[in-house]
């Protein structure tokens, strides 16, 4: 995409303003506005840190009764952070294979007249509000999955995820991670699809000409080309899953704890869900604790995103 607007732009304006005074005033103003707008983004991000800090830092050390029975800020935030990551990773495990498959389906497998509407529908799903997903997960999917919970606990109890008394109502991390997966699926799919479609046609045709099957063509021509794009898609999905609030808050019966068990009655509570469920009835002290956990969540997602960009940039440089 970097083909456009490479050479001429800046020299162009310089010669221009030297030649005629008429445009320079407008140019200065317009450029100024653009710079201000761009700087505003920096200011906004800094403001998020600053204001969450001002309101949240007192929350690091308030009376211990405000830490939801965990005694200290660390005691509260570590399990919450763990659960946030755990839920996001579970969702990715479910979503990534499906997303890649669907992206392949659209870009390389399906006939064109099926692929176009499918792509459109998947894009549309990215816009379905999370509260609707939450409602559906809590009222419809959860109860429906109860037998699945029982089956998992009976037959797969040798895995730590399923080892224990199963929930009788489906309000578990298991249900939530499926819903989360459905939510991030369109995001990962649409990016993967774009990268797959950008594979140079010549590479693909060369592979086929050598007698490769379609799968071999995908594996040796498409995947290597799309690797960094796929990583960035997955990271974007991860970012969305980390911050997702309502779906989890509405579906899961939560408890502040660290555990691998995902089909039981007590499920690790994520930061975002903890905030959403606690903000309503809050004394100022409790509120500052919640804002402090929000600050931690923000810092964490910031790091994850920065890491993702770094990986992608490195991949591109090679």
């Amino acid at each position, binding site marked *: 995409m970097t083909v456009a607007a490479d050479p001429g732009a800046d020299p162009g304006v310089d010669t221009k303003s030297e030649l005629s005074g008429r445009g320079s005033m407008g140019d200065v*103003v317009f450029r100024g506005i653009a*710079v201000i707008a761009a700087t505003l983004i920096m200011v906004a991000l800094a403001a998020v840190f600053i204001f969450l800090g001002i309101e949240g830092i007192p929350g690091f050390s308030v009376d211990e009764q405000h830490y939801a029975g965990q005694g200290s800020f660390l005691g509260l935030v570590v399990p919450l952070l763990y659960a946030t990551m755990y839920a996001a990773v579970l969702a990715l495990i479910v979503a990534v294979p499906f997303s890649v498959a669907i992206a392949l389906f659209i870009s390389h497998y399906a006939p064109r007249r099926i692929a176009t509407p499918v792509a459109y529908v998947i894009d549309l*799903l990215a816009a379905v509000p999370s509260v609707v997903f939450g*409602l559906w997960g809590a009222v419809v999917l959860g109860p429906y999955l109860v037998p699945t919970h029982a089956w998992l606990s009976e037959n797969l109890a040798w895995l730590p995820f399923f080892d224990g008394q199963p929930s009788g109502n489906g309000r578990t991390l298991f249900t939530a991670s499926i819903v989360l997966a459905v939510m991030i699926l369109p995001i990962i799919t649409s990016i993967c699809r774009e990268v797959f479609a950008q594979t140079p046609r010549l590479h693909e045709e060369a592979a086929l000409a050598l007698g490769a099957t379609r799968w071999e063509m995908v594996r040796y021509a498409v995947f290597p080309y799309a690797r960094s794009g796929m990583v960035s898609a997955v990271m974007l999905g991860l970012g969305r899953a980390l911050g997702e609030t309502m779906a989890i808050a509405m579906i899961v019966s939560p408890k502040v704890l660290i555990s691998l068990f995902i089909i039981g009655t007590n499920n690790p509570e994520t930061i975002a869900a903890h*905030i959403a469920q606690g903000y309503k009835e809050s004394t100022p002290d409790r509120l500052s604790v919640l804002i402090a956990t929000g600050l931690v969540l923000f810092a964490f997602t910031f790091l994850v995103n920065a890491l993702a960009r770094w990986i992608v940039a490195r991949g591109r440089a090679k």
Partner: protein
Amino acid sequence: MSNTDLSNEETKLSHATLPRGAQWLVGVAAVALGGLALVLGMGIVGAAVIGLLGFLIGYPLWALLVENRRSATDKLVTGLVWTAFAVAVIPLIWLVYTVVSRGAATLSPEFLTYSMRSVTGDEQGGLYHALMGTLIVTGIAAVISIPIGIMTAIYLIEYGKGNRLAKTITFLVDVMTGIPSIVAGLFAFALFTLLVGPGTRFGFGGGVALSLLMIPTVVRSTEEMLKLVPDDLREAAYALGVPKWRTITKMVLPTAIGGIVTGVVLSISRVIGETAPLLVASGFNPNLNTSPFEDSPMMTVPVFIYTQLSEATAKGVEYAWGGALVLFILVMVLNLIARIVGTIFAPKTGR
């Protein structure tokens, strides 16, 4: 596709191949297998799984016996891709079906024009107040985000090309896309707690929270569109002595306007359904409130859904589905608008 035909012919020269329509044959066998499982009392889901497994194993196996390993792998992957697609579509269709069928039962003129003021017990209420709130809050977010977003994109593409500031901004915009929505809400809440007073929840706060989520998407989509504007156009304008800012406003922006508008509308449809930030920053209110700057909570449709579900009554759940359908329709209409705008302004030539 001619390529596939070619490769088929080539394999024909050296190998035995499956008969034409082999996949249908296996498919019928798999359906029969599923039917058998159903008769044996496996339940519909179990039977479907068995039938599917039958196909996924049977087809490659046959290919393995008749053709070779590579072909079998290819068949297996093709089967898996189709299966993944089918399986992923199930929850999506299920979700849409539930929202539409359960929501339609609640939708009525009263539901759309009543608020929840003084509504108790089984009296008729509605989400008019929430609908107005959503339009106002989203409108505020749009008014803040669109100019900032578009100007930032202009800076990045037209002015900042490759300089340090532009690189930093691009990075920050990328990071900003990943801000958890509830953090945006907490930010607005913390900001106005300091500026206005403790516990301030009002429409403008919600707008600020949403704009934080909306700006990066506007920047990204505008950026993409500006990149598509051919450089020849800019150079031609400069050559004619047009100042840069006139070139941008008169040449570049009009050329890209279709894509920009589409991107903006899509970004609105993304934030219109945000719940968590509004729950925190603009609160809830059973009454109609149309003044976003007054220090009083403003209801929005997503929050309406959440609070109705929290009522823990049959009516509450019904209203939640009604709200979900209204929100769903809003989002779909916005997407449709984006599509239409996209086609209206699509360049008449090429692509």
